[in-house]
């Protein structure tokens, strides 16, 4: 039997028909912690084509199954966790609706409990990895005083240099993205204008927050 996901857009109910064999494998797990770890790995590697060998070997040892079955188990667990996180609800009633009605009840309750425990962490991870423009990771500034130049021998002009570290979205799922730096020089007038703009943003943010 293969993995079948039926997605009904109107009801946002996701019926996941896990392979009966996968459900049987999970019920034969040595302890609840093993099931927890399986779910966590499932979520972690949910988007990967290639799962690390060490993880699969671990599953093979814990459950006493073949590599192929371990891979299928991980994929099924990942898909289940992914759908649960998409729904985002931590209400047990909603989670129970994720499973088909003839699903093993105590396994279903255990999986629901695992999902509820880890929902906050997984949501935060999903938000961190979401599609976005390059993100600013860090920034530094310094203030210099220019004392002379080729056009005037003596002067005392302060200027600000700002360096921002920007991280692109990773090109590959298993690699950390490059961090590039953006260096900008600001004169006093530029900095004043920039701060005016930033203050406007802050005012608008607080007005939105107060509504």
């Amino acid at each position, binding site marked *: 039997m293969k993995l079948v996901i039926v997605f009904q857009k109107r009801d946002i109910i996701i019926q996941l028909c896990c392979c009966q064999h996968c459900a049987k494998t999970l019920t034969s797990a040595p302890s609840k912690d093993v099931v927890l770890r399986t779910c966590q790995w499932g979520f972690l590697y949910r988007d990967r084509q290639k799962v690390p060998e060490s993880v699969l070997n671990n599953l093979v040892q814990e459950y006493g199954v073949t590599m192929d079955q371990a891979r299928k188990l991980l994929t099924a667990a990942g898909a289940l966790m992914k759908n649960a996180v998409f729904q985002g609800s931590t209400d047990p009633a909603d989670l129970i609706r994720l499973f088909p009605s003839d699903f093993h009840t105590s396994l279903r309750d255990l999986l629901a409990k695992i999902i509820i425990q880890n929902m906050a962490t997984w949501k935060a991870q999903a938000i961190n990895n*979401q599609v976005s423009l390059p993100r600013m990771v860090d920034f530094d*500034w310094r203030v210099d005083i220019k004392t002379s130049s080729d056009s005037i021998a003596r*002067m005392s002009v*302060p200027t600000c240099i700002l360096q921002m570290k920007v991280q692109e979205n990773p090109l590959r799922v298993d690699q950390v993205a490059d961090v590039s730096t953006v260096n900008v020089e600001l004169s006093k007038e530029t900095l004043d204008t920039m701060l005016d703009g930033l203050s406007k943003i802050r005012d608008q943010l607080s007005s939105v927050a107060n509504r």
Partner: protein
Amino acid sequence: MSAQSFHFSQETPPDSMFSDIQTLNKFQDEQFGHLVQYVFEFLTDPTKSSRLFGQLEDFAAENGVSGNALKNVFKSILSIPNSALKKSLSPEQIKEDLDNLGLSEGKASYFVDQWRANLVGLSRSALGQTLMVNQLVDMEWKFGVTAASSELDKVGNTFLQLKLVINTGNGVTNSYMELTLPQFYSFLHEMEKAKASLEYLS
């Protein structure tokens, strides 16, 4: 004549400069005043060279002077305030140089007075020409709320997107980045500190 030392130039200026100054002495005070005005207008805005040439041509036509001779004279008289600005000479030093070059007393004093009057404008334009690395030209921003994503059906976090337009020397580049709200507040806080520092130093 014994070799005199000049402030505006390390070596003795060429003889042509001395003869140009003598030519200047022959001009009436009013005509000299016009020439001095052109000198300072050009120094305050060196990009307007076409305007300067127009002014010099008109002057040559009105006063019956040859255009080329006028240009040489003008070049000589321009070099003095130019180096004075680069070396930050005092008005007394400029007056001394003009006297040693042979400019008449009245004209030299007039020149130095005009120098004093225009000094602020000249300094400002010199500062404006000073090198700036990766100068920030413009900043655009927008902020919003993420409604949903492929991983989460309901998201609710705010983001701020900045576009910085930077003049790199080789052209203008746009730099895009996204900030979370706490990052934005810390950025604002740090920029206010930088502004306070700049204000204290200027």
